[in-house]
């Protein structure tokens, strides 16, 4: 968007003042925004469109850029590239378990913390700190926790040893590597939890009182008051969690490097390998755009279905 576009319809009052027909105050306002606009054009919009162009080409950083048309996309979407198919499957697997898991665990913790407990700061710290811990430190730590004789298996052995069941070799098995990473992801629920806690504190007390008069028990109140009133927060965190979980990278890179046998090869990891290990810039860009469209599609679907289940107080107040 250029400045001339914006000034294309000057109102009579504005005409004849300054170059663009803007008042001094309007020009000043625009100057305040200008740094962001510069950064947006150079570092977001420019690369965005350049990446779209690249996705139709073949280029290995040296030599000429070769125009391929839809060839990259055809190769990816036809299933010819089996590793790509595997990475889509893995990412979907992760999203399907990670998103509901995080939402439910956060909701339960937030619900408990909202019961006017003593020492809330201590619990909040314990639950929140993991989610701001450096991703690499988290990954290194869980690499250690998920070892065959690591912390998790030490704990599981308490129950499994008497039954004579072997605890899984989380990171060494194609079956268990993904569940291992998903369990690890449940450690970082803090942000969602605090959004919920803020939401719970905003629910008017009189709704619970009314529900009680109607004979609602604990579960009745959760179902008919808490959950409906929390749908805006649930919706927001769901959208954010879906976007975030399509971009898992650090954990897979550090803990498993996509293995064993591509069992934890995520889309972003595959993009990274193509771009910065094999230097297939065009192919990597095509993966990036497929990733982008999938995220965009799922976000739009969530927004469209939102009106069916998300309750906004303002809408029905009138």
């Amino acid at each position: 968007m250029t400045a001339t576009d914006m000034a294309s319809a000057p109102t009579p009052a504005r005409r004849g003042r300054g170059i663009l027909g803007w008042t001094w105050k309007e020009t000043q306002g625009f100057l305040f925004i200008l740094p962001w606009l510069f950064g947006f054009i150079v570092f977001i919009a420019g690369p965005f469109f350049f990446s779209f162009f690249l996705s139709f080409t073949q280029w290995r950083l040296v030599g000429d850029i070769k125009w391929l048309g839809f060839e990259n996309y055809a190769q990816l979407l036809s299933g010819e590239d089996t590793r790509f198919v595997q990475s889509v499957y893995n990412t979907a697997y992760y999203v399907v378990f990670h998103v509901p898991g995080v939402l439910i665990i956060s909701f339960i913790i937030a619900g408990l913390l909202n019961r006017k407990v003593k020492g809330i700061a201590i619990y909040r710290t314990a639950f929140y700190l993991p989610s701001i811990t450096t991703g690499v430190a988290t990954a290194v730590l869980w690499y250690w926790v998920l070892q065959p004789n690591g912390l998790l298996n030490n704990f599981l052995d308490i129950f499994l040893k008497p039954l004579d069941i072997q605890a899984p070799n989380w990171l060494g098995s194609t079956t268990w590597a993904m569940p291992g990473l998903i369990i690890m992801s449940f450690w970082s629920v803090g942000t969602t939890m605090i959004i919920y806690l803020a939401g719970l504190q905003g629910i008017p007390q009189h709704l619970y009182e009314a529900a009680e008069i109607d004979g609602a028990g604990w579960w009745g109140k959760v179902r008919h008051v808490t959950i409906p009133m929390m749908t805006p927060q649930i919706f927001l965190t769901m959208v954010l969690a879906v976007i975030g979980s399509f971009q898992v990278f650090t954990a897979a890179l550090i803990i498993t490097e996509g293995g064993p046998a591509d069992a934890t090869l995520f889309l972003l990891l595959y993009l990274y390998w193509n771009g910065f290990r094999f230097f297939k810039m065009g192919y990597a860009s095509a993966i990036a755009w497929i990733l982008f469209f999938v995220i965009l599609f799922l976000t739009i679907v969530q927004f469209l279905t939102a009106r069916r289940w998300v309750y906004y107080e303002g809408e029905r107040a009138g």
Partner: protein
Amino acid sequence: MAQQTVTVEPSDPSGMPSSVRIRTPARIRAMRVSGRVLTYVILWLGSFVYAIPFLWMVRTSFMRLDKLFEEPPQIWPDPWIWQNYIDMWETGPFANWIVNSLILVALGMFGQTFISIFVAYGFARTQFPGRNQLFVLILATLMLPGHVTIVPKFIMFRTVGLLDSLWPVALPDLWGQAFYIFILRQFFLTLPVELDEAAEIDGANLLQVLFRVVIPLSKPAIATVAVFNFINKWNEFFEPFVFIQTPEKLTLAVGIRWFRTQYGTEFQMLMAASIVSVAPIVIVFFFAQKQFVRGIALTGIKS
């Protein structure tokens, strides 16, 4: 979930009609107490589960390598090895990494926060054609996964010869970030316009209003943004990982990954290194809990 009073459901298995509620005061109190106890038990167990990986990390960082794989595992390190931290420090260029991370953090906390304040002020307090469309555009960038632009950015910085330095990590973010602009704008909108107008009548221009009226009144929101900035920059991984190759030029977050590829089996040193990378976050969190909670709560209110 916020309520404590537990009443018996109409579908009580005792088969009583719902009008006959067994709500004797003693019974209600007993249920309330047991509900409370249950809450605390779950919270204690839960926070223990969430805290124990941290504690395990601390424990491991003080253990001797050959004791790590003992069965059953040692709970308390014996012998207690402080030397692990010294070994770790001497094995990798940690001082370089910390300095690099701090440069990135400083640029973020001061540069990016400062520019975000300007932009947010422009959106909150001035009018110009196209302002609302631009604001929608800013919000739209929140939805754009940064990874879509990583390949072109790599090519761009390679062309101008800035790869393998902090520049490609720091430069793109310096111009104000959507989330911070949003938080600040929302806060600025809550300040009464009358204050601006009074200052303007006294002859202050927009910049003076920003520095003398808006910024002093917005310290909590600015602190929140600065704290978020600190954490995000300190933890930033993907971009420095892609853009920087020379070990000495890495940031701490990426440096630990390098360290792990070199000394992956020396868990005690890895844990010590992780603790060094997590410690500043824990410290910032303890001093700035309020800013964190407020910032996240603000995101929730957005919808």
